[in-house]
């Protein structure tokens, strides 16, 4: 299969499904199903096979860490969940990924809706050169999530959730690019929350931050997992051990091991996992 044609290429004025603000609490009937279900998923850039037959589930309102050596396909995996890889020509995939029970790769999937439901935080903070307010309001405006009147409330709520409100409440109209790196990354998290996502993907969100900013983001992740399902890729073993409930170890595009974080870090089942977390390779 070649790069999937985006179903929607129309202009700004396309009507979108108006989603009422979704209460983060999850109904009991949903509790049984995993938040993300990866079913025999493989992925290739042209001839280069990067993910091989992944098969595991990600639990709701928990933090799942993905660890593994550089180039093993962690970013590719995250970008497969919100289909950001579609932009790259010549990619192929097999199998499927279900987010909250809905297929990501079924034909006719609405990518706009998918990416609104699945938020992503990138390795380097990438705020828009707009005001702090406009950054957080970007998603809700784009996806017509709330009325203009309710926007300031939503922005404040997201900034509070991202533990940034107190630092920026007096400079909402100032350019976001003037914030420090750590603040920018928390702003990017707030911007993602603005879309009221079901799932948060974080690709090494702290790798460009200093230790103090890193700690703040980790605390934030800990807070957010009460309401959100979080998948975080990290190079930092301590970070994975600190913030996550579950850990998956990837090597060369395969899922070597997936288990409780505590189990992975105390008694991994596989030798490769142990070698990696004790720093003997990778």
């Amino acid at each position, binding site marked *: 299969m070649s790069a999937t044609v985006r179903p929607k290429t129309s202009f700004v004025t396309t009507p979108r499904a108006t989603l009422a603000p979704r209460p983060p609490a999850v109904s009991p009937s949903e509790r049984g199903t995993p938040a993300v279900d990866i079913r025999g998923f493989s992925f290739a850039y042209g001839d280069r096979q990067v993910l091989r037959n992944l098969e595991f589930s990600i639990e709701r309102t928990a933090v799942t860490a993905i660890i593994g050596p550089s180039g093993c396909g962690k970013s590719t995996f995250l970008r497969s969940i919100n289909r950001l890889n579609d932009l790259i020509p010549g990619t192929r995939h097999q199998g499927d990924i279900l987010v909250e029970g809905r297929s990501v790769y079924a034909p006719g999937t609405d990518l706009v809706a998918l990416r609104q439901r699945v938020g992503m935080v990138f390795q380097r903070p990438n705020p828009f050169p*707009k*005001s702090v307010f406009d950054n957080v*309001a970007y998603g809700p405006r784009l996806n017509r999530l709330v009325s203009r009147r309710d926007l300031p409330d939503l922005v404040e709520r997201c900034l509070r959730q991202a533990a940034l409100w107190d630092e920026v409440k007096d400079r909402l109209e100032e350019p976001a690019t003037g914030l420090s790196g750590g603040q920018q990354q928390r702003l990017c998290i707030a911007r993602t929350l603005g879309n009221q996502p079901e799932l948060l993907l974080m690709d090494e969100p702290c790798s460009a931050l200093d230790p103090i900013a890193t700690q703040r983001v980790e605390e934030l992740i800990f807070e957010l997992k009460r309401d959100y399902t979080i998948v975080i890729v990290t190079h930092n073993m301590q970070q994975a051990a600190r913030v996550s409930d579950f850990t998956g170890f990837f090597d060369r595009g395969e899922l070597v091991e997936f288990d409780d974080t505590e189990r992975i870090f105390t008694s991994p089942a596989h030798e490769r996992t142990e070698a990696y977390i004790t720093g003997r390779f990778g």
Partner: protein
Amino acid sequence: MTTSLASEPSTPPDVQESRSLELASYGDRVFRWLLTLGALFIPVLLGFLVYELWQGSRLAIGEFGLSFVTTSTWDPVAEEFGALPLIFGTLISATIALVIAVPLSLGVAIYLSEFAPKSVRQPVAFLISLLAAIPSVVYGLWGIFVLIPLLRTTAFPFLRDAFAFLPLFQGPIYGPSMFSAGIILAIMVMPYIMSVSREVLLAVPDSQREAALGLGATRWEAVITAVLPYARSGIAGAVILGLGRALGETMAVTMVIGNRHEIAASLFAPGYTMAAAIANEFSEAVGDMHLSALAYVAFLLFVVTVLVNAGARLLIWRVARGSGIGSKAL
């Protein structure tokens, strides 16, 4: 150098090193002076240019003063000169050029940097840069032999019928006209605006696109709401570059504008620009006053160019500064 043996004399290398350092710093100083001189050369040249223009136009300035810019008579025989139609023509033709060229160039630049298949991007960008290398007299000839006949038989009658209520599109259609000049200018400045804005768009980091797409933007929305705002000051620079070209272009304009010292409401009527008038009349000017009037025009062209550029820059500075603030994007 640090591992010198005890038996070896340790001073010679040090001496040599300090001497070569001294030499280098001497070289540094010379180099700096040369560069400073080079940099000073530009303002000096500019000052000299202004002074010369001023000197050349003193006769006309003494005779007509500021009324030169507010009157429209241009009569070399009676030695009466007023440059208003020339200033008008310069500004209007450049405006027409930008109104046509900016959206088209931006569209092409966006297509090339965001949507075109890889195999199309380079060849088209190369062809566009070739367009910029065509001498303007060739554009002028093409204007006379191809563009004007085409406009006279198709576009102009259509516009006159469709927008009959607008004074802009009324009156007899000659062919050579303000509108033809604007279109030729648009074609001539497009390569510049296009290739510079393409470069600017290519310089927008992919992380900005990914941020927008990751938040649920379509590719178009990502361009409109993230890529273009990020690139706005660079694109504005591209437009200013095009504007500068349009204001100063001479040869092609004089070949298609009709060269008449008149202000007309209709874009179908012939006009004139400052640059075109100088080029056309300088060699045939007889009287001192006529020559001096042309130098005055040149001086004014200089002033207008500086003013328009400064104004555009100020505007952009405001926009670039203002749009980061205020929650009214989208």
